[in-house]
């Protein structure tokens, strides 16, 4: 996200003025261009001293196992864990590999979180009032019920960039945690619970219910997130499902927009609603670099309270350093509340096969399009899951 470029430039300038060490930030957009870049740099053995890895945990582990990433644990634990304690534990967890993790990576912290992203629902305060609601929906049933009124008012319900799979994945996961709890979700990923389990079918059915109630925006599965952001910013949609980076986006599109963040409405009382959140971007230190120590000192400075506060203010992103929180805008603070109820696939000690995630997301798109039933999708996903599990057992790793 290159909207952060001026802020990083400024920080580099300050650091040079202070220490005489020149730091050159190179930012890439969009994120797929970046993950292509960093992968190529690794293969070509020309990774910079500090780099980010914008990929799934599984790929992160590959980077570590190939020897590209420095284990930062000793530095984090220096002086009574001074550095480690500055961060939100949830943010740091994204860069951590725990004891006996399934990736076969040595226990440790392999990255420094720079900011935090949470992905939540947002609602337009004015529109909700116009529709006659005093507060955002508390339960899923209430949420579905709003669909009719929204249709009548010729507005869109929930908008989100669901042409991209990961936002769907994230939405589904929130409800999976809510309906069956973390342990069962992780057990599914480990292959101990099938996707055909009634709880998973229930998660998939939520999408069917949303479709039927008219609460989903038209064409939501063909929507690019930018379009969704524009619809929400222009007050054409009542709800949005988006990451906390949107604060900056909405501000540029419509400074007067009156909105707030909320947790998705609960579909079950059994388990708490959980949203995705954690380090938005992290920096890794090149294990083969000659400037390791300099790089680490710079990262320590960059994640200090003052620099973090500056970064948060300049880019409207949540800081990773918890001591910088007091100074951030109100809407953003609303996002920060969700950090406590957040999780992220990258902090689980297992991760789902990319093809299984793909089939789940596609299946959900098909449900929204009315082409498949939740039961059919569950069966399809499970079939692919079993295939991948069998393959994993057959192959030397």
């Amino acid at each position: 996200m290159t909207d952060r470029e001026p802020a990083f430039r400024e920080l580099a300038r300050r650091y040079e003025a202070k220490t005489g060490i020149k730091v050159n930030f190179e930012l890439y957009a969009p994120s797929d261009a970046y993950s292509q870049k960093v992968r190529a740099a690794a293969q070509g053995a020309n990774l910079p001293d500090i780099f980010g890895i914008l990929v799934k945990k599984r790929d992160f582990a590959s980077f570590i196992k190939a020897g590209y990433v420095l284990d930062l644990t000793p530095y984090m634990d220096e002086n009574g864990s001074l550095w480690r304690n500055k961060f939100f534990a949830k943010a740091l967890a994204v860069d951590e590999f725990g004891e006996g993790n399934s990736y076969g990576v040595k226990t440790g912290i392999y990255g420094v979180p720079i900011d935090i992203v949470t992905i939540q629902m947002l609602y337009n305060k004015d529109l909700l009032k116009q529709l006659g609601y005093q507060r955002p929906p508390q339960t899923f049933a209430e949420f579905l019920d709003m669909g009719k009124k929204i249709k009548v008012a010729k507005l869109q319900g929930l908008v989100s960039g669901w042409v991209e799979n990961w936002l769907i994945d994230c939405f589904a996961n929130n409800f999976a945690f809510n309906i069956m709890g973390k342990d069962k979700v992780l057990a599914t990923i480990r292959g101990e619970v099938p996707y055909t389990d009634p709880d998973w079918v229930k998660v998939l059915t939520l999408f069917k219910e949303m479709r039927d109630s008219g609460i989903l925006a038209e064409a939501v599965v063909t929507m690019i997130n930018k379009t969704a952001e524009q619809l929400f910013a222009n007050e054409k949609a009542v709800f949005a499902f988006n990451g906390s980076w949107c604060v900056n986006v909405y501000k540029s599109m419509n400074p007067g927009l009156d909105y707030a963040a909320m947790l998705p409405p609960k579909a079950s009382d059994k388990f708490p609603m959980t949203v995705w959140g954690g380090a938005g971007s992290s920096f890794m230190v090149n294990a083969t670099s000659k400037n390791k120590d300099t790089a680490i000192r710079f990262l320590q400075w960059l994640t200090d309270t003052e620099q973090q506060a500056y970064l948060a203010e300049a880019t409207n992103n949540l800081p990773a350093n918890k001591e910088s929180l007091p100074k951030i805008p109100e809407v953003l603070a609303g996002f920060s509340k969700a950090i406590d109820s957040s999780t992220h696939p990258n902090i689980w000690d297992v991760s789902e096969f990319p093809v299984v995630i793909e089939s789940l997301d596609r299946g959900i798109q098909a449900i929204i399009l009315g082409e498949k039933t939740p039961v059919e999708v569950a069966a399809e996903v499970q079939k692919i899951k079993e295939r991948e599990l069998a393959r994993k057992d057959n192959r030397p790793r």
Partner: protein
Amino acid sequence: MKIRSALENYGFILPALSIFAVFYIIPFFFVLRLSFFDWDGIGRLSSATFVGLGNFKEILLQDPNWWQAMRNAGWITFIALTFQNILAFMLAVACDREIRMKNFYRLIFFIPPILSEIVVGMVWRFIINDVDGANIINRFLAQAGLAQFIHNWLADPKTALTTVAIVHSWKGFGWGFLIFLAGLQTIPREFYEAARVDGANAWQTFRKITVPLLMPVIILVAILTILGTMQAFVLILGLVGGELAGHTSVPVLRILDVMRDSSRFGYSCALGINLGVILVIISFIQYAFSNRARALTQDYEHIPSE
């Protein structure tokens, strides 16, 4: 002396040969090799796992997404072969007559082919999309009193692929048009004259003279259409933006996604080979056909350049 001369002559092809070797031959064998491996593109290549024919087995038996993409591309190709090429043929026949503004039409019809797929995709998206476009088509339908046909063409998975195919045909028909026109102009006018003297009507002349004599050209256009369309995908990126839950996925888009999103480099190479082999087989079949057609129409000479 002779050896020196030969070496000197090699010097002429050396630049071409070295570029070709590095950027075509090596990648060709590299794709072949990599298709037998499982490799995430992160660790060193030497750490890739050899899986034998595993990738191909998965393609053939367990990858419905790939075959859906194939079917989609097949549908686009079908529309290109019929709608696009028939349109091109009709336009060429129309322009082959003594008609005014012939050069003007020829100029205009080849404008879509010279534009990039990105530009075409984005402009058409803007013209026909509901969410982020002006949807001129729907406005036109509304004004023409055909409001019942108003539709969200690109967002509805039932119509998205056909919409893509029609835009693809719009972009591509100029090629067929020019090739057909060049072919038509090689047919000696005396043949038509003779047919008229024999009392043949326009349709008979068309069926008995134009079509048979043009057969090799028709087959050439068909081959080019299939090869081009089966590999097309950039237009979809511009027009739809993605795979639309598989409804607008096509093979090369899958290859790109498998490489970039799932980081399965070996598997994506295997997919590429699978598609390449299928295309080569199709071309061979058509080539055989065109040889037979050529034998049938011995009068046909090579299309001369202008």
